[in-house]
Structure formats: structure tokens, C-alpha cells
């Protein structure tokens, strides 16, 4: 039983390590975006970042109101 647990544990560690390696290689592969962004495109990406921050803030606020017994 102990041997089986050890083998499964080793398999999981190997899988996690393999996945981490794969993610690192994906990050390296796409580290330099292939397209040149125009001013408008950069502005659109900035808008997206702000939009996401706003949405995350809104979700956090909703979560806070639920915790404190709100709607």
C-alpha cells in the first residue's frame, strides 16, 4: 500500500513538473508578440486592462456585500 502511494505521488510530481516545464516553454515561445501594435491598438489594450480591473473590483464589491449580508 505504501509503495503504491509512493508511486502515485511520484507520478503526480512528474506530471506537475512536466506541466510547469511545458508552460515555461509556451511562455518563452510567445514572449515576443509577433505583431507591431499601433497607437490605437495599444490604447485598446490599455482600455482592456482597465476594464478588467473594474470588473474584478465590481466582483470583489459584490462578494463583500454578500459577506456582510447585502443583496
Amino acid at each position, binding site marked *: 500500500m505504501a509503495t503504491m502511494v509512493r508511486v502515485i505521488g511520484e507520478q503526480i510530481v512528474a506530471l506537475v513538473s512536466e506541466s510547469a516545464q511545458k508552460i515555461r516553454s*509556451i511562455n518563452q515561445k510567445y514572449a515576443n*508578440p509577433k505583431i507591431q501594435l499601433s497607437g490605437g491598438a495599444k490604447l485598446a489594450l490599455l482600455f*482592456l486592462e482597465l476594464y478588467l480591473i473594474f470588473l474584478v473590483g465590481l466582483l470583489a464589491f459584490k462578494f463583500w456585500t454578500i459577506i456582510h449580508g447585502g443583496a
Partner: protein
Amino acid sequence: MDLVSKLYFNYSKIIKTIRIYLLLAGPGMIVMIADNDAGGITTYAATGAKFGYSLIWFLILLGPVAYFVQEMTVRLGAVTKHGHAEAIFSGFGPFWGWFSLLDLTLVNWLTIVTEFIGMTAAMNIFGIPPLVTVIVVILVMFGIVLSGRYWTWEKITMAFCLVNLIYIPAAVLVHPSVSDVIHAGFIPNFPGGFNGELFFYMMANIGTTIAPWMIFFQQSAVVDKNMKEKDIPWGRFDTVVGAFFTIIVAVFVIIVTGTLLYGMEIGSAAQAVHVIMGTHQWVGTLVAIGLFDAGFLGAICIALTSSWAFGEVFGWAHSLNYKVKEAFWFYVFFFAGLITAGTVVLIPGAPLVLITLFVQVVAVTLLPAALVFLIILLNNEEIMGKYKNTLFDNIANITIVICIIVLSSLYGISTLFPALFR
């Protein structure tokens, strides 16, 4: 004789055109009709019950909107031969790539749960327990996807798309007044004035018309189908036909519920079916079959979208043209999504209502990003060459994208804070 020859020539030409279309049809038709998924049918049913035929004109306007967005994915897929997930990684780097991929996976999985909710509710009406529905559905999907050919999957799925048209005979059976439908539905109007509640329903309809998975699905399907640049006109035509049918289905759902349930508050399509069953058994049966089919189409397409996206980024073999042994992780991912989503529906006391609402909120975190990336990529001459957006494309697409972002965001926010527009 000359006339006969001319007629025969024209006949042959038409048959040849139809054959070519049937060969190249698929991604546009499937994505548009699968867009009328269980959640979509619920939205249309609720809209018809609340406002009768009055918002038919608005749904008709959404057809061109869906076409303009999806047409861009046809061009991008045919020219780059990459799916949307890979295109985002490649064009915008790992941060936006991982954000899009993980967000897509989450929203897709939640949406598949809602498809199973729709399918089990529909089959429950015929006395089939949810466990049996979930098992049979997954087994059938196994059979369709494991055929080992994209073509086979596509044509079987298109047959399921035809079943979606079941709402047409259902609408005929309820004997609506054609004059009422035309007068109330085809002339733009705001029933009861432009108030918060009407605005909420309009936003909900827009939210069901363009979903993030559709962008990823059609682009990946175009790549898997191996469509080339020369096939773009056919891809466009396929998308037009799909947009036409998706609106036809939406309009006929509205006609059914607007005739039978007008004035009622409907919370789900299953509830609508139960009420209709009480008075019009045949119509109820057809609507239940339609709801099941909608959930089935949604689930199979959405699960495939996640698998394609992960396969593209992780470099797995990711085509329906591969056997299981050749694209093991692609198929594992596909079935893992379906099986876990199906299992959630079977868990007693699972927060299914919360999941249904949460889908809208998560979707609005991804949709604006996916649309903005689409516009930026389509304007890049290095990538698109002569297929880049024209000035007209940009005026139409940017206007549509801004409207969708604003309205779908408001819809997502109103899901979080229901009192906002009520």
C-alpha cells in the same frame, strides 16, 4: 429545344453550386445555430412571454450583428491557419494568451453545465431521469466525435442543426395571428416605453447572440476544415445562411411563447415547456425536443472549442481528423469537460441557478478582450495581407464591437446587481 437546353444548363449550375456549398458549409451554420443553445432558448422564451411579438424586429437586427463579428473569424482562420487562442498568444504575448485561454475554459465549462441543465430538464418532461440523459448524451457525443473525421462530425452536427428548426412547426401549431405578428413584431417599437426592464431583456438577447466561444469555435473549425483563402466567399455565405437560420429559430420561439405565454414571467425554457404541455401537448413536445437539441448542440460545440484552444497552445495534435491514439490529450480534454459538467448537474443541491447567472458575469470578462483582439488582428496587414479589414469593415465592426461591449457589460453587471435595471 433551346429553352430546354438553357433550363438544363441552369439546373446543372444550381445543383453544382449547392453541392459546392454543402461541401464547404459547416462552421458558419453550426456556430450560428449552436448559438441558440439552452440559455438562448430560455432568453427567447422569456422575451416572448414578457413582451409578446414586440421585440421580433430587434432580434432580426441581431442577425447582421452576429454575421459581421463571425465573418472576421472566417478570414482570420483561413488566412493564418491558426485558431483564435493561438493567434492571441502569438499576437499579444503570454499574459493575454493565458488570460483568454483560462477564461475561455472556465466560461465554456460553466456554459456546458447550463446545456446539461437544459437537456436534463427537457428529457425529464418525457419521464427520462437526468442520470440516463447525461450518460446517453455523453455516449452519443463519444460516437460522433470519435468518428475520426472532421467531415463526419460536421455533417452529423448539421443534422442536429436541422432539428433546431422544430420551432417552426411548433409556431404553426399554435395558430398565431399573422397580422398581429407582422404589426407588433416587424415594426420597431418599445413595448411599455423604453424602461429598465425592457433594456434588460434587450441586453440579454444581445448577450445570447454573441458569446466568446463562438469566436474561438468558428476560427478553429475553419482551420480544422482546412479552408483556404479562396474558400472565404463560401465561408461568408455559410455564415450568412447560419445567421439567417439562427434568427428564424429565435423569431419562431418568440412566436410560440408570445402566443401561448404572453404576460407570464418565465424563468427557464423548461418552465415554459411545462406550462405549454398543460394546454398544447404537441407543441410542448416539440419545444422540449428543441430545447434538448439546443443543449446538445451547445455542449458538443463548446466542449470542442476548449479542446481546440488548449491543443493549439500546448501543441497537442488537435483535429477531429485524428484518431484517439494520435490526439489523445485533445479527446481527453473534450470528454473531461463534458463528463465533469454532466456530473455537476446530477449532484443533489448543486448551485445550478448560481452557475447559470455566473456564466453571464464570466462571459463579459472575456468577450470584450476576444473582440478587441479580433479587430486588431484583422487590421494587421502583415498577417492578413489583402484580406485585412477595409474602411467599411472597420466602421461596421468597430461600431458593433463597441455596442456589444457596452451592452453585454451592462448585462453582466445587472446580473450582479439585479435591481439596477428593474
